[in-house]
């Protein structure tokens, strides 16, 4: 019996084996390359390299760190680089990502700017920023900065003692505390539209802490005006306290006789107290405060009581239980 071969596929129509294999290999290579590129792009979408920093304007006539008025001598440790100081910031008004603040704060307008100093004072006054920066000679103060998140920097601030500003308004005898407030303007500080924190950001000091010569109002760093991400145009620097006490972009300072509310204390009172003095023996509930990572260094450093400024400030807290008053 003759079996007819099916001839519905002509031999000319059958793909050549070689070509079939080439095509298959091509598809395979394309699948590999395509998915790998896609994975890489998705990863890059979330791991964005930092943008180049913006430079501030040079500040003239700054008394440098070696001048006699400077107090205390700068720490022996190396200064943290400008790039790192200006690209690693906690400034929730712009972004909760520390490396994203610089980009989000780009173009933040800080002129005109006024700071109201009011409350329990003899002479309340609204200062124009440029007048305020002329109250006292601007000094370079090289301070350690210890964040409550366990990282630290050494920053050459440019500023002047807060006491000099307070002297201008003459606090009344009953004033015991100083309250500070950041600008509230969601158009300029876009993350204020989120509910991450209670806006505006508020902070406070006891009057004797505010009057301490180490406490400064800073308008610059590394000899230049502050970039937005570091708290332009005017911020508080209290070097023996955790960084969040250093309120940024200040618009109001109020003298009062009651403990002022402070933003992080409102957010989580068991984690962030009013005093927030750097203390290696009082731990954050979620992490130890015994050590810190100095930005730019590989190994950890021991955290110092009062961030190394105990000699100057410890007497402010004589007789107080710092475990309770954290």
């Amino acid at each position, binding site marked *: 019996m003759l079996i007819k071969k099916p001839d519905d596929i002509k031999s000319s129509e059958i793909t050549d084996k070689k070509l079939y294999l080439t095509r298959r290999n091509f598809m*395979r290579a394309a*699948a*590999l390359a395509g*998915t*790998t590129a896609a*994975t*890489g792009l998705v*990863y*890059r979408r*979330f*791991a964005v*390299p*930092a943008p180049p920093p913006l430079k501030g304007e040079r500040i003239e006539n700054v008394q440098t760190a070696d001048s006699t008025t400077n107090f205390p001598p700068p720490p022996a440790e190396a200064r*943290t680089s400008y*790039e*790192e100081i200006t*690209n*690693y910031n906690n400034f*929730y008004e712009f972004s*909760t990502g*520390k*490396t994203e603040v610089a980009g989000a704060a780009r173009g933040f307008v800080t002129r005109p700017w006024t700071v109201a100093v009011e409350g329990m004072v003899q002479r309340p006054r609204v200062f124009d920023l440029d007048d305020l920066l002329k109250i006292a000679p601007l000094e370079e103060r090289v301070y350690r900065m210890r964040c409550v*998140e366990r*990282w630290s920097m050494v920053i050459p601030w440019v500023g002047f003692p807060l006491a000099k500003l307070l002297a201008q308004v003459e606090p009344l005898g009953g004033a015991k505390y100083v309250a500070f407030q950041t600008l509230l303007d969601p158009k300029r500080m876009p993350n204020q539209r*989120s509910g*991450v*924190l209670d806006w505006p950001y508020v902070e406070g000091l006891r009057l004797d802490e505010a009057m301490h010569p180490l406490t400064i109002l800073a308008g610059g760093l590394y000899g230049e005006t502050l970039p937005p991400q570091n708290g332009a145009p005017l911020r508080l620097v209290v070097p023996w306290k955790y960084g969040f006490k250093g309120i940024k972009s200040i618009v109001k300072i109020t003298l009062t006789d009651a403990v002022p509310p402070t933003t992080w204390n409102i*957010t*989580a009172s068991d984690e962030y107290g009013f005093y927030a003095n750097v203390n290696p023996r009082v731990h954050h*509930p*979620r*992490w*130890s405060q015994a050590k810190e*990572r100095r*930005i*730019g260094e*590989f*190994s*950890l450093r021991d955290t110092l009581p009062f961030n190394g400024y105990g000699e100057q400030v410890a007497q402010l807290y004589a007789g107080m239980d710092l475990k309770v008053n954290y």
Partner: protein
Amino acid sequence: MFSPDIKYTRFVLFVNGLVPAALLAWDVYHGRLGANPIEFATRATGALTLIFLFVTLAVTPLRKLTGANWVVKLRRQVGLYAFFYGCLHLLTYVWFDKFFGAREIVADVWARPFITIGMASFLLLVPLAATSTNGMIKRLGGKRWAKLHKLSYVAAVGGVIHFYMGVKADTTIPILFAVALALLLGYRWVKGRMDATAKGATLGIQTPPR
């Protein structure tokens, strides 16, 4: 039904799984991770652990919803990648945060729920990785193996809680992870209920008269 060449697909998956690690290493090498590269690496590897774990949990819903049964053949590899990134995540803590100080680590795990939960979730992944070979599946028997691997649900829940506890105030991303996990686990629960009802109906079981 479409069903790809599994061997080659596994190779593609293998390469893709290495991409984040390779890019992370590249960024470290070129100093592109910003001021605190260690913090960045810790967060990135932690998130990647959860992402790969979630992909393994997405396999069952994907199969049942699309009928693409072949995806199950890729699950083990994805799970091992979750373990791989979990190991890297743990390493950043043990090495760069504690410098292999055993006493400090124990004290930290003991005193801080944030660390306790993270560590426990990681440890749950260890038996899963250890029983991922064909030989172990045979030795355990499919049913017991499957039961054991339900631990991945617990590890995922623990991992998300750990993530949530790790942020200071902005909980947006941990909450997104929690929602994704709720969908993945919620699907199983709903499907289980529906299947049980359907089974009851075919067996003629009726609710007893009152």
